[in-house]
């Protein structure tokens, strides 16, 4: 085992050479389809980013790329100066931080509860029921949510007063959206944590039992540390995608009152880009979103390193 590991490390340190390539020819050959796939579907489309520096409207769209008028950074400036831009960025970040925090905590809690249930049949059934909403489209979820949370909806009737959950133009709307999202996704998100928990050595639990640890102590000292790497990996991935807040969810749940707090970057790019047929502007907004996403990802990765966890990249 240790010898193998040592040789592996040695290999990594080996200099790039022809012999090495020859030695690993089958591995390289096997990776070719994936590299080709990556280049074709992930890198070549990046060429489209040139649109962000050009004027691309219906009248110029049909021109070949090099004949479209280059406008430098004016699309970006236009986007940054838009009255909605700052608010949109705040909304996007606010929504994702809230979503990641609430979503992770609730998924872990749910997984812990499921994990502790000893009655297997009940466990299976409740798990299946809980992740079913994940497969239901947002259109359906949104109309159900509106029936419950809208002004004069089920919750308002229950409490006998107007809670304004979906009609308060404030970050309260983010909370409402996040709660709906949790209801939809909690079961699905818990699956990963559950499988991580299943991988924890049962011997640890038995030892703890022998030492007199109660359930909560076992959860705190064994289960949670056991799934910590999973949590960190999922958090890093979540933060990397923080700006990719889904547009359809926001569109479907918003209304005239909360519009200011519902707009997110992807929707903004759609409205200003496709909606106004100003494709260059839309691309610029999308590009900004990707760049910020990459920066966030790197930061999260660094933080994970400081926390003493394995980094992703």
């Amino acid at each position, binding site marked *: 085992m240790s010898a193998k590991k040592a040789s592996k490390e040695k290999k990594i340190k080996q200099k*790039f050479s022809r012999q090495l390539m020859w030695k690993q020819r089958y591995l390289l050959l096997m990776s070719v389809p994936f590299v080709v796939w990556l*280049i*074709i579907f992930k*890198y*070549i489309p*990046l*060429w489209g980013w040139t649109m962000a520096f050009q004027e691309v*409207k*219906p*009248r110029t*769209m*049909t021109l*070949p*790329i090099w004949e479209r008028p280059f406008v430098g950074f004016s699309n970006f400036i236009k986007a940054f100066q*838009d*009255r*909605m831009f700052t608010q949109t960025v705040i909304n996007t970040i606010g929504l994702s931080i809230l979503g990641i925090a609430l979503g992770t905590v609730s998924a872990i809690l749910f997984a812990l509860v499921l994990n502790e249930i000893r009655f297997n049949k009940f466990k299976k059934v409740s798990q299946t029921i809980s992740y079913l909403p994940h497969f239901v489209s947002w259109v359906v979820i949104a*109309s159900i949510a*509106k029936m419950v949370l*809208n*002004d*004069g909806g089920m919750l308002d009737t229950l409490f006998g007063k*107007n809670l304004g959950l*979906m*009609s308060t*133009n404030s970050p309260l709307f983010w909370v409402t959206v996040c709660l709906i999202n949790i209801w939809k996704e909690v079961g699905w998100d818990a699956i990963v944590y559950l499988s991580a928990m299943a991988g924890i050595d049962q011997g640890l639990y038995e030892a703890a039992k022998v030492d007199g640890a109660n359930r909560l102590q076992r959860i705190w000292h064994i289960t949670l540390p056991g799934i910590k790497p999973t949590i960190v990996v999922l958090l890093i991935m979540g933060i990397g995608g923080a700006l990719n807040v889904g547009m359809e969810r926001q569109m479907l749940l918003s*209304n*005239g*009152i909360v*519009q*200011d707090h519902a707009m997110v970057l992807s929707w903004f790019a759609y*409205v200003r880009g*496709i*909606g*106004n*047929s*100003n494709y260059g502007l839309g691309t610029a907004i999308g590009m900004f979103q990707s760049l910020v996403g990459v920066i966030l990802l790197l930061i999260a990765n660094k933080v994970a390193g400081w926390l003493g966890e394995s980094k992703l990249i």
Partner: protein
Amino acid sequence: MKKRRICAMLLAATMVAGSLAGCGDKKDDTSKKGNDGTEGGSETSGDVVELTFFNADANQDDPWTDPVAEAITEATGVKLKTTRPVGGNDESEAVALMIAEQNYPDIIFAKGSAGNLIEAGAMMDMTDLIEEYGPNIKKLYGDEFNKLKQSADDPAIYQLSAYVVGGTKFKDAGNLQIQWDALKAKDYKIPESLEELETMIKDYLKANPKTDDGLDKIGISLSASDWHWLITLGNPAGFIADGAPDNGQWIVNENNEAIYKFASDNEREYFKWLCRMYNEGILDKDFATQTHEDYIAKIASGRVVTLFDKDWDYQDGEKVLKADGKYGLTYAGLPTCINADTKCPSLMYQGLTTGTGVGISNSCKDPVAAIKFIDFLCSDEGQVLNKWGIKDVNYFVDDEGHRYRTEEEIKYSQEDADYSKKTGVGFHNYPFPSYGDGILDPTGSTYTTTSKEAVINEYNEEEKAACEKWGVDLLVDKFPQPDEFTTPDYSPLWAYAMPLEFTEITDKLDEVAWSALIKCVTGKEADFDKNYDKMLEDLESTGMSDAEKMMTDIIAEKVAAAKS
């Protein structure tokens, strides 16, 4: 390090190669497409040309197999293959894709996205074609033909009009709608100002606080959680406060100068009234967040006393009431305005609605066949075929040469939801050009099946009783009549295909106005002026004056083009 550099170079090389390949491919694509197109054309049997048609407003497929379609094909040698936007009524994505792919159907009705197609150079100037092959098109549009021209600088005709030419309105939902029961309670006296309307609603609510099912009645409801705000919150403000006809978000004064309508002082008064209604609990407290389905459901339950809407928008709810025979809870369209001096513009003929209609694309495989096809639809024969159907099947001709439909046919057409799809009558009519209601053809019959008598025949008991009480033939006789208005030189602004620079600003203006107006109405009365001023300030900083100037220029151009 070296490895990375090699990787980077490889990557760069592939990207360049990829892009070059991509561009090369594109050329191949277009030539291929051309071939495909012609192949597609020759594939169709005999002399029949199959033209592709994009219909932005179609909500069901058109297999082109009904008797009327066959008769049209027989007369023109053209068969239409219709495509429609997938997923609801939003044509903008479908059109954006067409432009991106450079793949256009032969005939296009693009509705609001027509401007993009024109800017992309996809639409053909039909002027010469119409001159040569379109005598019936010219006849149909008559004096208003020149209004079809794009602008004074670009006097091309890219599209015809999807709306009717001339005619009389035999029915209209007016400025606002109130339940017949509430109107009866005041002995059919039409309120002449918002104050009178307010008393009418309040008195009725006091006398009938609940419906038969025990639900609370609602004084006024609106649908404002999506684009419907334009119809129920925005448009009525213009009609009621300014007596202005529907020009979208614009009010045009006698000098043809446009202002963004929410900047008008009269509208401020109207919204102030709405705000008071909201705070007094007359206006539905959920109006801003309820979905359109909720709104329709409320109407269907008979709870809502007053609407500020149009019949096409609320009829789904009203249908339920009619089916239950609760005619007293259905709606009477009223010409009520903010005060007695303002005239309800419902019946005004605003001139031909241009800017949205069918056009021929530049990639059309047979433009002559296309224009001849449209010309046939504009001819008397084509109009009658489309609207009345097949002679001796759908309609008959009496001894005096007038067309008439049998009772069974009328019943069939009213009761079978698939009537027009099965028989083809009225199925291929829109969005092609057509005459308005009440216009007579050379035989002395109307082009459309809608006539004054037909409308009166369709009245329900409440409507009949009202006509009797008011001593009129038609309900709309109580409205200010068309001859009290002059038709403006420009066609209704809402339908124009606007330049992008303009829509970029106006989309933002609407975005600001939507949430700000709701804020004004749902806020405290004391804060109303502050909120409204804030909205005007925001509108101003979003470019309202620029947009107003552009709009005024566009109107001037259109007027100049129509006169040239």
